[in-house]
């Protein structure tokens, strides 16, 4: 015997929980009720909930003071409730549970959760933000050879911050709805790490571009790096926002990230035969210390470039 009466907000957030040990509970504004409600639209003695052989039942104490179950109103005739049903009296929202109503399994507080909890303290967040701004500033500086323009740096910073904040906000909303805790800074930190990894990846790409000069290779590796960064961010965002099995989480994150990459690769591939007025090569130049590719002689060069003059019949069509 016994049941739980939850007083919730309109959106379903729990305000009070009452455990009723007997089989009957009265609800109303009067102080002789088991559950005392301070809503002016609720009658002094408004409703009665009873645990019976058939299950939980609710009824109004008299006509004219309706009790709402979903969109239906009832009066003195008792109505059956399922465990977890929502009920409204006046402007008060209630949820009624049987004592044996199942609860969700425990969330794991593993190393990643611990790591992010320790990283999202105010001082560490400030450090992360500073590091992020410094990285973007360095990147912007290295990419320009004119006198550094302050406005351009500010523009870059604003765009990166807006992007990561918007990303974090979306996930926080999802998390708030799904698990009741937004954990905004967790999501923001994930976005910042992903963007930073991508920036480091871009530099690696420049080294590859410098050494190979092949736009296609560079573009394909760029897709790989971007896909990996997106998959990384999605896995963690899903972990912090939704309740899922690790298998489902990885399937969603990897699946979505590589689907986008696959689409981009297919688009690039379908544009491959497009006629171009200009040659496609990568002009990236880095200091000589970044050279990995071997040096050849001018004779070797002309020998190797012989193959450039061979065109297939399809190309000549």
């Amino acid at each position, binding site marked *: 015997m016994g049941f739980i009466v939850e007083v919730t907000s309109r959106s379903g957030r729990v305000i009070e929980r009452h455990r009723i040990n007997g089989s009957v509970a009265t609800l109303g504004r009067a102080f002789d009720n088991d559950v005392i409600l301070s809503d002016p639209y609720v009658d002094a003695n408004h409703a009665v909930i009873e645990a019976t052989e058939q299950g939980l039942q609710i009824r109004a104490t008299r006509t004219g003071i309706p009790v709402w179950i979903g969109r239906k109103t009832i009066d003195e005739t008792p109505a059956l409730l399922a465990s977890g049903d929502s009920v409204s009296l006046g402007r008060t929202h209630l949820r009624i549970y049987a004592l044996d109503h199942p609860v969700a399994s425990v969330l794991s507080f593993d190393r990643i959760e611990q790591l992010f909890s320790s990283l999202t303290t105010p001082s560490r967040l400030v450090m992360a933000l500073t590091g992020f701004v410094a990285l973007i500033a360095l990147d912007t*500086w*290295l*990419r*320009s*050879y*004119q*006198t550094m323009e302050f406005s351009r740096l500010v523009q870059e910073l604003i765009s990166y911050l807006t992007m990561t904040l918007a990303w974090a906000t979306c996930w926080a909303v999802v998390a708030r709805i799904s698990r009741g805790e937004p954990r905004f800074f967790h999501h923001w930190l994930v976005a910042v790490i992903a963007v930073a990894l991508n920036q480091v990846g871009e530099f690696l790409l420049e080294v590859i571009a*410098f050494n*190979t*000069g*092949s736009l296609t290779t560079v573009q394909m590796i760029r897709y790989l790096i971007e896909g990996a960064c997106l998959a990384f961010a999605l896995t963690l965002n899903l972990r912090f926002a939704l309740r899922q099995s690790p298998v489902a989480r990885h399937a969603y994150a990897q699946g979505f990230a590589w689907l986008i990459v696959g689409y981009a690769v297919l688009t690039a591939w379908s544009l491959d035969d497009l*006629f*171009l*007025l*200009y*040659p*496609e*090569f*990568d*002009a*990236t*130049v*880095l*200091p*000589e210390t970044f*050279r990995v*590719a*071997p*040096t*050849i*002689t*001018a004779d*070797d*060069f*002309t020998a*190797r*470039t*012989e*193959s*450039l*003059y061979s*065109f297939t019949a399809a*190309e*000549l*069509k």
Partner: protein
Amino acid sequence: MARADSEARSVFDQAAASVYQILIIEAESGNKSAIGSGFQLADTDLVATNFHVVSDALHKPEKYRIEYLDTTGRRGEAKLVDFDVVHDLALLRRDTAATQGLTFALAAINKGDSVYSLGNPYDLGQTIIPGTYNGLLERSFYQKLLFSGSLNPGMSGGPALNEAGEIIGVNVATSGNQISFLVPAKYLVALKQQAMARSIPLTAEAYQTEIEAQLYADQEYKYALLVNLDWPTQKLGEMNVAGEVSAYFKCWGDTNDDKELPYRMTESSCTSEDTIYLSGSLQTGAIDYQYGWVTSEALQSLRFHRLLTDSYGRMFTRNPAGEEDVTNYHCSTEFVGADAPQAVWRVVQCVRQYKKYPKLFDVLFLGVLLGKDRRSLSSHFAISGVSRENAQLFTRKFMGMTKWAS
């Protein structure tokens, strides 16, 4: 002045009947899609004009046909007989025999002599333009006569005559402001002989093969000349580079003097003015080469190389070509040892082939010198309509020209 006026009148009276308007008629609409001029050669049934006037009809005979219109208003069809694509000349045959015709001048023409150019500018009707002969255009692979008179669109292919009304050249191009160019009559004489000597007449099927043969022969001649020349060198920054390879090239230079900029860039750029018109979408024959010397003390090494990336990636070939004319480029990137201590070239070479003239290619070369801290030279050339062998010879010659000077 009065004498010149009466002379112009007498040349006009004598020659006008031999000058035609050449019309390119689009088959479906039956309307003209292009116009030019042409003239009857005496004692033959041949009409001379420019290649570029009739090129549409040559490339797409099913879509365009050639017609002529004489001063009496008679209009008839003309057939393409022969052409010289390099000198922009073509010979047509009219459908009925002609009674008139112009003869070639035998006497040499001298600077300052009066020249009369006839044609039909802007479809306005037969016009005579008096002007002066100002010598041979010397800085060009292909001789042209400099005519100080105003040629206008529509006059292409018309005759340029001396005071006796004899052919000295063919109207071909203008740079505006009374600077116009004529194809010397000797090339037309040669073309006439070539047409007469053909045992089998040139047919539409053979046009493209003929163009390829002419272009191939022309580039063989040009590149043999270029590759065997001793190229003069000039100093650019701390490197020696090729100067004006021959009088056929014009070189220009520039240095950025903006004190605000954290780097200095000196550029030298040479071009040959000779291009060959093949169709509205394809020109060929150009040879360009450029050097850029960049230094900086203010820029950190990575930023200096970013500057190189941007300035060096912008270069490409000048000649226009469409999808039906050329393939996409093939490119390759290599690091080649440089003729400078501790330095290496990053070289990109790109090649595309002509679809209708598979012996010919457009070739692009980009080299940037690395390993000299914040001093670098970029070298670039773009050559078009060249055979593989000549492109490779030119590349080797070009690569051997850049040497560390100090």
